[in-house]
């Protein structure tokens, strides 16, 4: 009896892992299916895109500008060791477009919108609002979740673009205006080194991140009542939201590596 206990535990956690993965998979499938299925109500998508996108713009501007500025500063310091300050433009642009833009934007969206979506849906689950939707024959996947997915997939790449542009301007500000790198060289280097592939990678990443963030946040909230640690009450919502934020942040970084490795 005593010997079999650890095996029981192992089997138990394996089973619950499989169950959870299956649930998440079916959840994503149902959401995407409902995205394709007509009708296509526009207004909820715009509302969600406004929440995820427009209301994140300020944060993205701020983080983008400072990221670009620090890149300009650090890049200048490193490049000047080799006497190649002229490469500052391409260094800033490439690191922003390929890596920092998509990743930092995604992390900001996780913090702002991911947590909010998880908490919102979790509370709706907790107070039987999702049951009420189902009883009114309103499909929560169609009504509640599909607009959020579409909004996320649209908003995150657009935010990433804003981040990139502002970041490059920030790098220009520090490099050219403050540190006296030649402005022409800054932009010439950028034109020469940034290729379509780099932009493509940035866009693919931000699309995947957008999907990933909404997926994890929405599914965590939606399946709050099935959480093993007990998803009850305010504490259940707060714990699940924390879980969702941590899990999405880690997933973003892991997928960032995977996509880079595949696309390079």
């Amino acid at each position, binding site marked *: 009896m005593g010997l079999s206990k650890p095996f029981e535990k192992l089997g138990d956690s394996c089973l619950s892992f499989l169950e959870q993965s299956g649930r998440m998979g079916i959840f994503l499938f149902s959401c995407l299916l409902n995205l394709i299925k007509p009708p296509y109500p526009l207004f909820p998508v715009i509302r969600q895109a406004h929440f995820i996108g427009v209301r994140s713009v300020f944060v993205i501007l701020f983080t983008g500008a400072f990221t670009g500025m620090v890149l300009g500063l650090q890049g200048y310091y490193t490049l000047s060791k080799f006497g190649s300050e002229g490469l500052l433009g391409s260094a800033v642009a490439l690191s922003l477009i390929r890596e920092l833009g998509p990743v930092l934007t995604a992390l900001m969206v996780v913090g702002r919108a991911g947590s909010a979506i998880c908490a919102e849906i979790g*509370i709706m689950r907790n107070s039987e*609002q999702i*049951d*009420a939707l189902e009883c*009114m*024959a309103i499909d929560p996947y169609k009504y509640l979740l599909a607009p959020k997915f579409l909004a996320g997939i649209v908003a995150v790449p657009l935010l990433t673009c804003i981040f990139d542009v502002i970041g490059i301007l920030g790098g220009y500000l520090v490099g050219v205006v403050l540190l006296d790198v030649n402005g022409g060289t800054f932009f010439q280097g950028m034109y020469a080194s940034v290729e379509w592939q780099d932009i493509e990678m940035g866009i693919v990443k931000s699309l995947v991140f957008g999907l990933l963030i909404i997926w994890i946040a929405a599914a965590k909230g939606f399946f709050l009542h099935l959480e093993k640690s007990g998803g009850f009450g305010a504490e259940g919502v707060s714990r699940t939201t924390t879980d969702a934020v941590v899990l999405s942040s880690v997933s973003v970084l892991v997928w960032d590596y995977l996509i880079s490795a595949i696309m390079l």
Partner: protein
Amino acid sequence: MQSDKTIQAAIELTGVEKTFGRQKVLANINLSIAAGKTTIIVGGSGQGKSVILKHMLGLVRPDRGMVEVFGKDLVRASKKELNQIRMEFGVLFQNAALFDSMTVYDNVALPLRERTKLTETEIRAKVREKLDMMDLIESDDKYPAQLSGGMKKRVGLARALVLNPKVVFFDEPTTGLDVSRSNEIYRLFHKTQSQLNYTAVIVSHDVPKIFKLADYVALLAEGEIQGVMSPEAFQLSDHPLIRRYVEETMGPIYSSAKEEAGLYESA
């Protein structure tokens, strides 16, 4: 049509079993809900009354057994069929389950907006009619958090009735309300049922007051329905579990037919 349909069952549960984790909640439920009538399900706390309701709504699938609504098996129904059946349902949840980021008006209008092709003007007329019925017409731009418990229930009832459903489910409609508020709910229930002629399924603790509304009372105990009968017959039943429940909730019942039977015979 009336005379045929009234005897027919709107909902029929046959041999329903449900286990959550290691706990068997429903052992063998056989229950038939008469169409056009009011059936009350009573029983101690934690016996699974709400679970039965969730089975009828198709929110929970039974481990074994059948749940038939208007002759259609919910367990085997496709999502589309299930939604079609649910179009005939109205539900008043225990805590009303109002959408808390929407106003009262939008809450009641939601089923119409999502499930019908009515124009906004027609929706407005219908919503106002239902809100008027519930004496809520002045609160239509308030949010659920700004309402009292009794008002929330009334909004929930207005929302449940807005599609003119054939069956309305009430999960503990008066729990947490004081006497006059619960009387108000009962009054509205009575009024709306006589207007709309819906079949009602009520899960309640409010014995014996709830008996006044009932056509049939069903006792859930030990995972089974112990009997469905008229409130009068329920209170006088010989069934040991029903008798115990009645005595626990209402005290010993005095029945002239029983207690004085010997008296009349000897006389």
